[in-house]
């Protein structure tokens, strides 16, 4: 159930997948343990910081980049081109796949090694390249594990977080012949050996980008393993692929976001490598790729960009803190969502990529507890955006128009009627008082079951007299003092 690939038909199966995950004690334990650890680490990483001021800085840096987005993209393109990096644009994920295929075909490239890139997951690039007869191998250890298992990442930073050591040991044994072991150092060393061979053989390296700096034409990659450096240095050609929103103005901007990114993501004050690439190999240099390409992918982003509120979604720097702190994600894991980006950020981003119809159950799968918005390093008001998408799902607002693809498709006549009825009663105070007083009087007739609520809980009991009644009586002096009334209520 959990290895579902990201295909549209699967996204609709949120409920069965979530239930399967809830019933799987291994999944529950793996995620709980991992998320507890990540929350602790983040808290410690910001201990000596004025975190709220830092988050404001992060939000403002991203907001400023978005405010100047078309200009920055042009500046980036110009600077990169001057530096010798070729820039490509793609309207959709499919178009981006084709751009990459064309580059590979022109080089007669058959073997691609990949660094971590969520955009490439979004494009389903590996799958596409395989179909074109090009082998695409993931080199980030977590991505490598997930690829061997023929799964998708369950977390945007830690792709294999749903698996424990035993499961990974079995997988590596089965797929690569590595001896079974619970020694993580041994398993890691074995993967290192296998992947080093692949790096040497690769014709093309494909990576993502964390920040693209317009002023200098610099692609920044944040990583711990060194596979990103390998991917961008060893093969003769490097293709970087990224969403158009990843551009920032200056190196200072990137540095500020870096301070937030690593601490928010994994609680590290910095990752092992911050890799800044501005050029292909120069004539006097002895290594590095002779050709570097950047593919700028839109894939729905320019339509998110149109709306002032939805725009906040594009501030995201992909740290994953929202999922680490999400009580829903912690319990169902990343695969239940059936989307490239799981968790809170996935819920507000995927509807734009796949349409609100396909992602119909995602915006409601939140208690709106606000933990995600509280930790977001760039202050994305995720709960507010969830409410916005819920509203768009049912076209629930005549004043504020719906704009997201697939809006209104979740509106059901029955539910709309129920809310109309609710409104009818609650704008008529006299009827409301009459109705609720009647309900209180007839409370012994209150049913003990109330749909899904009472599947796991008892129903709350109606009090013998409503607060309205008690206070009205108190005001008119028709009954005794309040304290006497207190006894017996809601028992």
């Amino acid at each position, binding site marked *: 159930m959990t290895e579902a690939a990201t295909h549209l038909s699967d996204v609709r199966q949120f409920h069965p997948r979530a239930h399967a995950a809830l019933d799987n004690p291994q999944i529950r334990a793996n995620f709980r343990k991992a998320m507890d650890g990540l929350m602790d680490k983040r808290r410690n990483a910001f201990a000596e910081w004025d975190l709220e001021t830092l988050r404001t800085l992060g939000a403002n840096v991203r907001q400023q980049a978005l405010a100047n987005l078309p200009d920055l993209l042009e500046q980036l393109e110009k600077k990169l081109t001057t530096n010798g990096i070729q820039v490509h644009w793609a309207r959709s994920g499919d178009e981006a796949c084709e751009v990459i295929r064309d580059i590979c075909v022109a080089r007669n490239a058959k073997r691609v090694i990949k660094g971590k890139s969520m955009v490439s997951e979004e494009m389903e690039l590996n799958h596409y390249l395989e179909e074109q007869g090009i082998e695409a191998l993931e080199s980030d250890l977590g991505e490598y594990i997930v690829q061997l298992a023929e799964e998708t990442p369950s977390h945007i930073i830690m792709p294999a977080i749903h698996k424990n050591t035993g499961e990974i040991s079995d997988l590596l044994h089965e797929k690569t012949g590595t001896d079974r072991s619970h020694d*993580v*150092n041994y398993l890691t060393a074995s993967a290192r050996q296998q992947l080093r061979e692949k790096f040497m053989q690769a014709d093309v390296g494909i990576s993502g980008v964390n920040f693209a700096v317009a002023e200098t034409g610099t692609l920044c990659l944040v990583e711990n393993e*060194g596979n990103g450096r390998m991917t961008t240095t060893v093969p003769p050609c490097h293709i970087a692929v990224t969403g158009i929103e990843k551009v920032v103005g200056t190196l200072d901007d990137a540095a500020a976001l870096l301070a937030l990114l690593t601490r928010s993501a994994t609680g590290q004050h910095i990752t092992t490598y911050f*890799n800044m690439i501005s050029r292909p190999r120069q004539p006097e240099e*002895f*290594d*590095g790729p002779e050709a570097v390409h950047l593919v700028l992918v839109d894939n729905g982003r320019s339509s998110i960009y149109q709306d002032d509120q939805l725009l906040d979604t594009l501030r995201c720097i992909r740290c994953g803190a929202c999922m680490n702190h999400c009580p829903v994600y912690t319990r169902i894991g990343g695969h239940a969502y059936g989307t490239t980006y799981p968790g809170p950020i996935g819920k507000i981003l995927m509807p734009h990529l796949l349409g609100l119809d396909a992602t119909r159950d995602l915006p409601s799968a939140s208690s709106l507890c606000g933990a995600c918005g509280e930790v977001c390093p760039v202050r994305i008001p995720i709960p507010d955006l969830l409410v916005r998408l819920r509203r768009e799902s049912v076209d629930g607002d005549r004043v504020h128009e719906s704009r997201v693809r697939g809006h209104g498709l979740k509106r059901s006549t029955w539910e709309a009627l129920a809310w109309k009825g609710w409104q009818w009663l609650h704008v008529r105070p006299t009827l409301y008082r009459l109705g609720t007083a009647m309900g209180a009087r007839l409370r012994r007739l209150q049913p003990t079951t109330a749909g899904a609520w009472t599947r796991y809980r008892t129903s709350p009991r109606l009090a013998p007299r409503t607060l309205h009644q008690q206070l009205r009586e108190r005001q008119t002096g028709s009954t005794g003092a309040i304290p006497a009334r207190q006894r017996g209520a809601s028992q």
Partner: protein
Amino acid sequence: MSARDDILNALRARRGGTISAPTPDFSVVTERPWNAAEKLDRFQRMIESVHGEVHRVDEETWVDILADLLKTRGVRNLLAPLKHTIGTALRESDNPDLPELLSYDQSIEHWQPSLFNEVDAGITSTRGAIAETGSLILWPSADEPRLMSLVPPIHIAVLEADQIFATFQEALGLQHWSRGMPTNALLVSGPSKTADIEQTLAYGVHGPKELIVLVLEG
């Protein structure tokens, strides 16, 4: 219309009009009161917290200290720059404990398998360091190519103590990075690592398993 024009036009014709954005105030990431000694102490503490090994050395002793460190580890050879004084000092040294010195004097294509399989350690200079995060600044060059600090299992970095900046922002400003970036610039903070298997740290997953920093004082 090209994809480029379509995308840029869509962004320019934004329905919501101009986006308001407050000017960022960077003081929260820049104002640090540390003096030189505090910067060095902090740098050391931070990089050690991520498994980096720091030795404070001086011009007179560093080659001998390095020779000891490498000998203890059974290092057979050391990839060193040809032009940088680090390389020349090593090549001029008569310390018998130094391993064989290798040079990166040809394109990677000509010797990739031996670099990947036979080199035990690489030594590079640094362009300074960042106290706040315990990060080394590397600007690889023809003399110290990119893979020198990545492929061998041990990376030794030589840092001059007076080149430690408080923050990344300070280094960017004082070294005028925006005037011209190199092909590749790096911040390196510790050896290569992963926690992708059940959050358990393992070092040397793709890059060096060990990072040794020699801080040149005085």
